[in-house]
């Protein structure tokens, strides 16, 4: 006889109830949701773009431009370095393929030249023979560079999309040099496309320490004409966390507010800075998070300017030691480090009590003004909201009718009791899939609904297998209880095998597919996984409980 320990029965019931609780926010009205804790209420299935309407872009970053630019700078620095080391050269040329070639006058100076190359950038690789040296970045460095460019492009995209006031964009890396951008609810993509390649505005300004000291952290009533107020990034983040309404107002204001207006109206922490730009972000070559070798390896940010930027920066820092230099990005001050010493030679560091994560973030922000690659749209799909509504309607009707037909069929074939068991297991399976998708925050797409319908059709299959086996065992002369037990146990291997094979297809489809197809693979694979639970454990519980309760001698099957 089928037996299930009591604790397992209880565990199954608790598990199912939990699934119900997690799936619940999907059907709760918004007014109720607002009363519930956020971590719970946000367990909702997102509708995919094909259902809610919106735009989907696949963007490809053109890395050649970035690389060539880097190489031009390498060539510039190398010329200086070679002169310093008194190496005579015919030419140092940046090639369009991302290489730099050096032709020496004297082959004997090759070793010194390579030393100079290392001094410029240790990640450079030197090849070639005789007086010619062929320089390129190591593969490792190229991979790092690629990742950096993509991360940075993602950061820039996020800012740009936020500016358009749309909510919840999805921006993720795809493969090595692509970005997937999904913006729900947007109809006209023209503005967005125009914004995609807009460069972030990064500028360095000196802080007006006199004004800052006079106002003592508060807002100065009067400002000299040379100075303006800019909110700090931290301040804006804090505003976003405490007063989201104000933040949204700022983001969606039309015409856009100036930094000073933001400071005056919403009072986030602001800094008075000189309007004059010390250096622009276009002169910043690179910024990366590293560790201070001298001071016990604490996290710092190192940055490099091109020649012009280096000169302006050198002059400004020499005259303003002890003062703060504000780094402004898109109307926010991302940091204002104190100038410790004159920074000449084009590169410097920012120190402070940073965590490695903070330095990563700061470096990324600094790079937002420099070095990005052109993003080309290689795939675009837009769905109007009304089209999405049509799809929701069609999907819902198909799902309801499909489920109804399957239930009707199971009742008709196996009677109210066993048909009911099968339909109950199927309903629980559906509940588990929905709960799973809610917890994972997965998107439900139109093909995803098709996956759910298939799940419904497939999840009663295990009951069919069990019942048909029971009928067979019964025909072979077993008792009612014996037939049920044997039928369940013998059908089990086939149930598990058939689920696994279908799961293989589902998982591979997930790995390969994109967008809506991934939605299909998600709901189908989840359905198969949860089906393993309902088919093996849940159905077992139903049958075992029923058998213990009724002790049947005859089966209406």
């Amino acid at each position: 006889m089928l037996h299930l320990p009591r604790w397992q029965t209880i565990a199954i019931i608790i598990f199912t109830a939990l699934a119900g609780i997690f799936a619940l926010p999907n059907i709760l009205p918004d007014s109720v949701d607002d009363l519930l804790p956020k971590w719970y209420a946000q367990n909702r299935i997102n509708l995919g773009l094909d259902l809610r309407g919106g735009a989907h872009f696949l963007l490809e970053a053109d890395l050649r431009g970035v690389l060539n630019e880097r190489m031009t700078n390498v060539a510039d620095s190398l010329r200086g370095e070679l002169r310093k080391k008194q190496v005579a050269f015919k030419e140092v040329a940046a090639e369009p393929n991302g290489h730099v070639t050096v032709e020496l006058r004297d082959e004997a100076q090759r070793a010194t030249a390579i030393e100079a190359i290392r001094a410029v950038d240790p990640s450079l690789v030197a090849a070639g023979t005789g007086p010619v040296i062929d320089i390129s970045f190591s593969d490792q460095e190229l991979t790092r560079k690629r990742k950096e460019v993509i991360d940075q492009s993602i950061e820039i995209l996020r800012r740009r999309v936020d500016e358009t006031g749309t909510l919840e964009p999805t921006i993720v890396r795809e493969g090595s040099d692509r970005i997937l951008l999904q913006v729900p609810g947007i109809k006209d993509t023209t503005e967005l496309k125009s914004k995609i390649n807009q460069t972030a505005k990064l500028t360095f300004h000196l802080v007006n320490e006199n004004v800052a000291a006079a106002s003592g952290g508060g807002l100065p009533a009067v400002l000299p004409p040379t100075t303006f107020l800019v909110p700090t990034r931290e301040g804006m983040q804090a505003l976003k966390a405490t007063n989201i309404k104000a933040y949204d107002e700022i983001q969606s204001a039309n015409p856009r507010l100036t930094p000073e207006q933001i400071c005056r109206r919403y009072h986030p922490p602001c800094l008075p800075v000189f309007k004059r730009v010390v250096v622009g972000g276009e002169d910043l070559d690179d910024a990366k998070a590293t560790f201070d070798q001298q001071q016990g390896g604490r996290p710092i940010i190192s940055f490099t300017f091109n020649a012009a930027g280096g000169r302006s920066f050198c002059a400004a820092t020499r005259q303003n030691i002890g003062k703060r230099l504000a780094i402004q990005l898109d109307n926010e001050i991302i940091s204002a480090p104190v100038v410790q010493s004159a920074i000449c030679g084009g590169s410097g560091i920012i120190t402070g009590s940073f965590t490695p994560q903070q330095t990563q973030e700061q470096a990324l922000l600094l790079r937002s003004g420099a070095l990005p690659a052109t993003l080309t749209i290689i795939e675009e799909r837009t769905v109007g909201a009304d089209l999405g509504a049509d799809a929701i309607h069609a999907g819902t009707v198909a799902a309801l009718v499909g489920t109804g037909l399957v239930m009707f069929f199971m009742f008709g074939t196996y009677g109210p009791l066993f048909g009911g068991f099968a339909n109950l297991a199927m309903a629980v399976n559906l509940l588990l899939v929905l709960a799973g998708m809610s917890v994972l925050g997965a998107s439900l797409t139109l093909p995803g609904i098709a996956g759910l319908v298939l799940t419904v059709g497939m999840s009663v299959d295990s009951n069919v297998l069990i019942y048909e086996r029971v009928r067979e065992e019964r025909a072979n002369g077993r008792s009612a209880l014996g037939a049920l037990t044997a039928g369940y146990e013998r059908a089990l291997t086939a149930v598990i095998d058939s689920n696994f094979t279908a799961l293989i297809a589902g998982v591979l489809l997930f790995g390969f597919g994109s967008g809506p197809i991934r939605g299909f693979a998600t709901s189908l694979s989840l359905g198969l996984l949860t089906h393993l639970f309902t088919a093996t454990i849940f159905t077992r519980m139903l049958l075992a409980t029923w058998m213990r309760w009724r002790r049947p001698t005859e089966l209406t099957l």
Partner: protein
Amino acid sequence: MLWKPHHIVPAHTKFDFMGKRVWALGLSTLINVLSLVGVFVFGLNFGIDFEGGIAIQVRAKQGTIHLDELRATAAALGIGEVSLQEFGDKSSALIRVQRQEGNAECVAHADTVMKRRAGNGWSVKPGASGTGDVVFTGPSQLDSAGWRDAVSRVGLTVLERELPRNNTNTVKIDMTPEQRAEWCQQVAIKVVDDAISEKYDIRGTESVGPKIGAELMHSGIIAVLATLGAIAVYMWFRFEWQFGIGALISMLHDVISTIGIFVLFRLDFSLTALAAVLTIAGYSINDTVVVFDRVRENMRRYKKLGLIDLLNLSINETLSRTVMTSITVFVAVAALVIFGGPVLYSFSIAMLWGVIVGTYSSIWIACAGLVYLKLRPEQLRHEEEGAKAKT
């Protein structure tokens, strides 16, 4: 009738399935050969996912759609092959435009669009031949942000940094021919938009560039092969190598004949269609597992029974199961075909066929495979010994 159980398939059938295997194999071979011939002669009707191109869903602002009129309008646009079909209801249509080449015509289109959208003072000209460069000229001087905004009117996204910082009234955009081809997709959308927006609403647009189309095709083929291979290996581990090969043959049979359905009905072979093919491969094996499981069980029980009789017995014993499980999925998919709407139509039709052919192939093809692979009861022994050794 709902309140008492029914036996849809009689409990004890004694049909000589394997006796008809030559007929079944003949029929299947014919269907598969015809499918393959169809693919090579008529070709699959690849959707834009694999071919690249543009698909635009439109709806008439008033009344029903006039396909002939719309077709004539679209054909005169000079953006290559355009095809139209009714989509969903009488007032909606799907316009498909072929993948765009980054040629001079495309730049001429961009010029027209630019003049229409930004004013007559604008012009767009191709740059030096051999490159994909494009030269924009405007009526007044613009800075980099202005240029960025201006070129985006024709769907071109250019990095602001790469545009001239000082005010100019002409700018050359450096592009490779490949990048220009991707951009021309955007231009073509705007050309269609301008031509039809007076009478039609655009409800949705899809544009797949040449590059991504080729990649999706490549990875799609890999996905199908990997799925078939992985399932066959799973069957081999769970059963015997003969079962693995039998399953593989029946899956190939289902996949190829499903593709045949796409050729026969000229269904759109898109990413969803590929999803259907993979799901069919995974699903058709379900019934095969049920039959194989019973074959294995019976081989142990009836050691003296000949293979043909053994297979017949196993198939008949499991017949109600294979048929019933297929019916449940069939009714669910039928609901998708009828109510699922135009987007899911090809997918659902393919799935419907897959359910039928999957059941058929599990019975005849997979089992007939076992006959020709000369499965012998004694080959199961090592597994039994293995099982004994474990306990």
